[in-house]
């Protein structure tokens, strides 16, 4: 028998099989239990050892050749079928994908987080107090007695209510009452007093409304109480904070004497700026050409009456305090120009000026978020 010709014939039939069904039929015909090649394999058993020596490998070769041709042909057919199916499945990827809404953090919250980060590095904790305050904490304890003209400087919102001690209830006009509450808490825990370093951010209220004032705004209070703290420390702290906040080493401060009942000496702090593209950009001395000074914050050494109201001995403890407008420094840093828009909840404004959830300020990355 001519095995080579048989193989040739089988391979030709495999190559010509029209589809997978025809190929399977061919496989059964050749290699199935009743298949022609399977039949040849069975003849080996009846052969003499000599014949088997010569014929065996030829039949074996025939079987292997057919098997591998079948396998290869089947794979090729399957692959072609898959290609053909995938070709029908193509889609237009320029169509829009489902979109996830982009949430934002309000600039005031972002800036408060930035402040917390910077001041934490200088050892300051964050303290809070009520916004609905009594007039003792908001005024009297801060050395602003009942008939003091300074009370008129604060356009105060009052409630008709009095607390259990007969104190008039009002909306705090500044974050300074947190100074008193913090000192009293510290004295409660440490009767002799203990060093304090806090910032106290939050909402404050003044009965004032125009282009640059809103009846509610945000302030952050700073308070350091310790032994031997003086004006030089105050200046350093403000410089260091502003340099870190604006991420500029060329911040220059100008201190001017001023008056606040709760500090003595009292210091108004101006910061130098330049006009760049019509906007004020902090940096440089306000006396340099093309520069100016802007009032930034009020501060001073804590008045001895206030330290005493906080339960501490002013002969032993002294320190400084400052208060700064959070909305204002947010505007200076991030370029908003209308304070009233902060509180409008305009989704377009929030999307434009808001911050990604992932922009949590860190010192290593710089607390600010680039535009």
């Amino acid at each position, binding site marked *: 028998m001519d095995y080579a010709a048989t193989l040739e014939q089988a391979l030709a039939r495999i190559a010509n099989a029209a589809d997978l069904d025809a190929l399977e039929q061919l496989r059964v015909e050749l290699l199935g239990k009743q298949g022609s090649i399977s039949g040849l394999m069975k003849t080996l058993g009846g052969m003499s050892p000599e014949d088997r020596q010569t014929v065996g490998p030829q039949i074996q070769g025939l079987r292997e050749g057919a098997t591998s041709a079948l396998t290869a042909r089947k794979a090729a057919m399957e692959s072609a079928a898959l290609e053909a199916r995938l070709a029908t499945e193509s889609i237009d990827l320029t*169509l*829009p994908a*489902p979109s996830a809404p*982009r*949430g*934002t*953090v*309000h600039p005031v*919250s972002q800036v408060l987080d930035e402040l917390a980060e910077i001041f934490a590095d*200088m*050892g300051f*904790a*964050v303290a809070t107090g*009520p*916004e*609905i305050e*009594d007039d003792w904490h908001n005024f009297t304890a801060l050395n602003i007695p009942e*008939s*003091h003209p300074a009370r008129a*400087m604060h356009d105060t*919102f009052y409630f*008709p*209510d009095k*607390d*259990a001690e007969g104190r008039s209830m009002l*909306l705090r006009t500044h974050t300074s009452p947190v100074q008193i509450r913090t000192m009293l808490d510290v004295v409660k825990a440490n009767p002799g007093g203990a060093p304090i*370093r806090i910032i106290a951010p939050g909402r404050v*209220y003044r009965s*004032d*409304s125009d282009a640059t004032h809103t*009846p509610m705004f945000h302030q952050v209070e700073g308070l350091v109480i310790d032994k031997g*703290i*003086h*004006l*030089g*420390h105050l*200046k350093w702290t403000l410089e260091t904070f502003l340099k870190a906040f604006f991420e500029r080493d060329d911040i220059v401060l100008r*201190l*001017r*004497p*001023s*008056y606040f009942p709760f500090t*003595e*000496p*009292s*210091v*108004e702090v101006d910061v130098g700026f330049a006009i760049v593209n019509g906007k004020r950009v902090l940096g440089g001395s306000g006396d340099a050409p093309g520069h100016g000074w802007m009032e930034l914050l009020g501060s001073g*050494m804590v008045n001895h009456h206030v330290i005493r109201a906080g339960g501490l001995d002013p002969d032993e403890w*002294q320190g400084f305090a400052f208060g700064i407008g959070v909305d204002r420094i947010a505007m200076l840093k991030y370029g908003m120009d209308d304070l009233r828009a*902060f*509180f409008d*909840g*305009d*989704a377009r404004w*929030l999307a434009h000026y*808001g911050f*990604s*959830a*992932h922009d*949590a300020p860190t010192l290593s990355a710089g607390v600010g978020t680039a535009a």
Partner: protein
Amino acid sequence: MKFSLSWLQDHLETTATADEIAAKLNAIGLEVEGVEDPAAKLTGFRVAKVLTAARHPDADKLQVLSVDVGDGTPLQVVCGAPNARAGMIGVLGLPGAIVPAGGMELKKSAIRGVESNGMMCSTRELELGEDHDGIIELPEDAPLGMAFADYHGSDPVFDVAITPNRPDCMGVYGIARDLAAAGLGTMKPVAAKAVVGSFPCPTEIRTDDPAGCPAFYGRVIKGVSNGTSPDWMQARLLSAGQRPISALVDITNYVMLAFGRPAHAYDLAKLTGAIFARRAADGESVLALNGKEYALDSSMTVIADDAGVHDIAGIMGGEHSGCSESTTDVLLEVAYFDSVRIGDTGRKLNLTSDARQRFERGVDPAFLDTGLDLLTGLILEICGGEPSEVVRAGTPPATPRVIAYDPARSLWLGGVTIPDDTQRAMLAALGFIADDSWNVTVPTWRPDVDGAADLVEEVVRIHGIDNVASVALPRADGVARPTATPAQKLERRVRRAAAARGLNEAVTWSFLPVPEAEAFATGNDGLWVLANPISEDMKAMRPSLLPGLLSAVRRNVDRGAASLRLFELGRRYLRGANGASDERLTLGAVLAGEKTPRGWATGKAQAFDAFDAKAEALALLAEAGAPVDNLAVMGEAGPQFHPGQSGTLRLGPKTVLARFGMLHPATLKQFDIGVPVAAVELFLEAIPGKRGAATFARSAYAPPALQAVTRDFAFLVDAALPAGDLVRTVKSADKANIVAVRLFDDFRGQGVPEGQKSLAIEVTLQPGDKSYAEADLKAIAERVTTAAGKLGAVLRG
């Protein structure tokens, strides 16, 4: 406080320029709000000579002038001033010039048919005085054609903000003292000569209220003539923004502005009997100089005569006894009033005045005689007359305060080293006398200085507070310690979690219109409502975060927004113990309008529903550390919500951690919102805190050895049974084996009896150390069906 440079130079010998003075004022704590030069407004006005004046052909009161501005070409100008005449020298405004008073730009025009090439100006038109009876007449030697600004000369006006602690600087003299102490010149002594009266004061002067008016000095001057005050005085007053009125009134105003010493001049003819300070009687009233009637009460001090009240002491004089042109005899009042009394009275009457500003800050109690001498001298000089002897009723509290000071404090508190002698000299220049052992006598004009820290402020501000060197705060070793409290960390985390979920953080007002606050009020404690709101829209403190967000939704929808996801993290304001407030950190979120817009794959736009609100509530509570798996959905979200599509998330039956759902159509109507709104409110204070100290190491990871198995069950239940009840019941049917139960189908309709529904759940079973045998699974299934059966659930065949 406004004053001109020339006025300052009345009291300060100085060569400093206006810029140098302004810089120094800022440096010593007298904040300059502006420096303005009235001459700067005089561009386009020139010295001009009237060559001829002829009657206007068509108007009786007008003249047609020919005016020479020095260039040889006379200009024709129509003028209505009665004093315009040939030969006079005046001021001509040329076309293009802007008249300072009123701001009108001059143009070439025709007046009643006659061409006019400018305007001859009056003092008032140039804001240089009050005279408007005629045009300005200049001396004959005034150079023709000269810019009038140059002729008039520059006299810049400083506008200085005086802080409430510095009554002494409410007069030009006090400002000069500060500048001199700061090295900007030399003080000129006050030119007050004691005037001896030539007859006893004919009117009895006394104080019947020594608490409110400790001292009342006065005298009568007879035979005065009250005309206009001299030009120099008018110029001073105008620079301070005061309108000249009459010589007597101007003199009292001038002494107040120059020396911070208010006084009052009464027309003696209008007084009856004695004049004295007393308490007002309840029900009394007075017509004040501003034309308003003020109702007085017994807490107020007044100046009265035997017939009635004339003057709200230290605040404002009365209309009836003021000086007028016909006044011939005056009574001068120089009194000392208690500062607290003045402040209280002023606030009660809601009446401010220059006098009140000074008295309530505290005028110099040792300046009464000098003040009276200054007034008398000026009146005699300007108005003539004959002065009586001085009456001094009562005694001003003029004992100076003495403060023990240690010059080392300038370093200790101020951070600067200033030699003792320098400090002593600085203090002396300000009027403080330090003895050898540093007991410092405070001048009577500085009521604000009551302790050593004030003296530090004095020397540091004169030294220059800007010269204080920065000194680093001591720093603890190592990396900064964490300072945030658990509550602060929670707040930050929840805020960023909400933003990460696609919500935009808003900050809205803490106060609301009362009806909006009432609609969201909880409990019966009552709202915090302001007594003096800025408007009705900002009156009640918010009891919930939702109303403010809803107003923001309305504004956004009105601007055309189709989809809104807003949140706010802030306080809601409740009533606390002992009349204090109870302010609780709360998160509010609103989902309004379209959840997804119409899309090629998703079809029509999808609106937000209650499950979107539930998803936000659970996700944010999970971020906040709440045990979300243990929360039950219950009702009572509140009347603001859709009664059938809202709920609360509770830990146990009472602790409400959140409410969520669709808002009630009535709520949307109240806020004028035309789209459905899903809302969430998280009560963050209700989330139980973590117990024990924080640890970093997690519990050991021990994955189960065997794979979990799932089994599905479908139950027929009453249509009203909450699916959550079934899930919870099944979950606890066999706690050893069942680790999770998930509801995946809620079906009503074909094959399900009316009034029932089919709920399908997937139960996950976790085998322990050996695989489940058929019998085990059967037993578990049995327990599931039994437990569900207690809810009336029947396993579907």
